[in-house]
């Protein structure tokens, strides 16, 4: 018993994860007991559980950084992303419940899979241990594959899921091989130990290997980054994104575009932060980090350009938002590429903004799928006058996605541009600014379709829950844009808890 007690003592620190796991199992079993009848109850139960998880996470925010079981790091960086994941999941659950095209019965697994994916996210954003990182990532991926193919009778849904798992499997294989090389080079699977300098006598250090065997290190790092690039859909691992986002059910697309992508970014930030930027890394490592940064900057520039240019010629709104999400991955990657503490903060802030505006944009998509049954931009014509509240909220989202004031998207982009110029990547800021101009064209095509034509009257379709969510998100988008100080302080807590020294030059 005495040997067991330290393990039991660590359990309370995993309370949010344990609550989610219990919730997932209850939802699964209850769905079996109900035999697929009355799935809405399971949705309400999921919401209830998520509120509880959120409350536990808020408690953890104020607790000091600690490590449970030597693997799970509980710090503000992880808690920040967990809170946003819970929020996004709650919105997605409401989306599922108010999706007019979704069946009302027999969709209990929907909630089980969503919670499972969230558990994966929780572990992948809060660990320095590569085994746990891989397991969290795979738990998220496996749940996502099943969710993408949720509409079994639909050819598009089945095709989306198959493409997702085939490319997902490739990226998992590539990433794991990269991790195995990292393990072979350093003899440890703990990122913090890998990044630590070799001054303490042990040779557990990537720094020692940079000079001894630079080529294997480069291969290993690039392979692992490729795995992350797939999750956040960065060029050249983006090609699955439009197909999967278009074919998957819209609430699932929302989850993939928002929660899954942000979680990929969180894991990437922790990986790079621990290996290359933590306090006490050697000069050789910092120099190496600059080269990785240049690679990421190039990828960011290509990703945002390709995303925006492809979005220009889309007529399907869902596909347009998919390409737009690729472009936004490029913007958020700017903050990672500059390899400074402030750059990381800017990236985290931008991801928070990304949560808000994309949840709103996809909510709008779901709303109009319910009204018109179509995803085409053209089918929106004149609907702005009939559904003024939702449409005005969408215009706010579009303004924010473009990066114009007074929205949170503007401030996020301002931070990213400022940090990249500050770190000597002025060209990247110029490319990003030009991209924002390009994105204006396709975002405002949607606004134009909504308001610049009128159509004959048809009976209005009321969707009060969706309307409410979209309106609230629009208000948040403006309010956090105007009063960005609290959100920025939360974002700044991230790099601090990753032990990245501020003002590293």
């Amino acid at each position, binding site marked *: 018993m005495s040997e067991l007690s330290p393990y039991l003592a660590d359990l309370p620190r995993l309370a949010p994860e344990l609550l989610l796991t219990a919730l997932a199992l209850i939802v699964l079993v209850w769905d079996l007991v109900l035999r697929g009848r009355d799935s809405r109850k399971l949705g309400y139960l999921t919401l209830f559980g998520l509120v509880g998880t959120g409350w536990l996470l808020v408690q953890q925010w104020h607790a000091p950084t600690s490590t449970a079981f030597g693997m799970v790091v509980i710090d503000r960086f992880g808690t920040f992303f967990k809170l946003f994941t819970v929020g996004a999941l709650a919105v997605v659950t409401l989306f599922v419940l108010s999706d007019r095209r979704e069946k009302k019965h027999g969709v209990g697994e929907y909630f089980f899979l969503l919670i499972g994916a969230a558990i994966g996210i929780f572990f992948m954003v809060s660990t320095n241990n590569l085994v746990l990182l891989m397991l969290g990532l795979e738990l998220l991926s496996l749940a996502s594959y099943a969710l993408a193919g949720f509409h079994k009778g639909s050819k*598009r849904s089945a095709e989306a899921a198959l493409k997702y798992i*085939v490319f997902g499997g490739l990226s998992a294989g*590539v990433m794991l091989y990269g991790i*195995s090389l990292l393990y072979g080079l350093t*003899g440890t699977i703990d990122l913090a130990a890998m990044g630590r300098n070799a001054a303490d006598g042990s040779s557990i250090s990537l720094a020692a290997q940079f000079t001894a065997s630079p080529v294997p290190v480069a291969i290993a790092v690039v392979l692992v980054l490729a795995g992350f690039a797939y999750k956040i859909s960065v060029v050249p691992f983006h090609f699955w994104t439009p197909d999967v986002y278009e*074919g998957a059910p819209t609430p699932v697309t929302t989850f993939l575009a928002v929660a899954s992508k942000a979680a990929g970014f969180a894991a990437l930030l922790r990986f790079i932060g621990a290996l290359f930027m933590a306090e006490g890394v050697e000069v050789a490592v910092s120099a190496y980090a600059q080269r990785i940064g240049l690679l990421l900057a190039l990828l960011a520039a290509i990703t945002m350009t390709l995303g925006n240019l492809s979005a220009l010629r889309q007529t399907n709104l869902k596909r347009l938002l998919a390409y737009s999400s690729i472009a936004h991955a490029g913007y958020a990657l700017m903050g990672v590429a500059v390899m400074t503490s402030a750059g990381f903060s800017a990236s985290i802030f931008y991801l928070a903004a990304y949560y808000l505006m994309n949840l709103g944009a996809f909510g709008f998509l779901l709303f109009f799928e319910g009204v018109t049954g179509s995803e085409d931009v053209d089918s929106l014509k004149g609907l702005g006058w009939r559904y003024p509240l939702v449409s005005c909220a969408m215009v706010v989202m579009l303004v924010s996605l473009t990066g114009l004031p007074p929205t949170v998207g503007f401030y996020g982009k301002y931070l990213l541009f400022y940090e990249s110029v500050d770190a000597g990547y002025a060209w990247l800021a110029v490319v990003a600014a030009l991209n924002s101009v390009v994105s204006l064209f396709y975002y405002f095509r949607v606004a134009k379709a909504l308001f610049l034509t009128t159509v004959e009257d048809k009976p209005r379709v009321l969707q009060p829950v969706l309307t409410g969510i979209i309106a609230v998100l629009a208000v948040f988008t403006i309010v956090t844009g105007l009063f960005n100080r609290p959100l920025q302080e939360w974002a700044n807590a991230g790099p601090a808890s990753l032990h990245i020294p501020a003002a590293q030059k």
Partner: protein
Amino acid sequence: MNVPTDHVLALAAVLFALGVLGFLVRKNVIIVLASIELMLNAANLSFLAASRHWSQDALAATHQPSAGPIFAIFVILVAAAEAAVGLALVIALYRLKQTVALDGVAELKG
């Protein structure tokens, strides 16, 4: 018989390359999924080779030789789960389209 670590790592690299090649050139979804398994197993082999290297007496104290096999076991688990989901999706698609060729699925384009 003691096989040098370099040789095992080279075998793992060849297996990985074969997996990537199979993924890129084959069109049958089941073969593609099998290629992914090959890549995962190449990673496993390389984990085990590294683990054997770090378990030498002089190194074992400062490194984690046990991490390699533990990682490999979890990779096997992940590979099994991925195969289960992957084949389920293949069956779902086959029921709709009566084909398991990647070229045969092209509803989503642009």
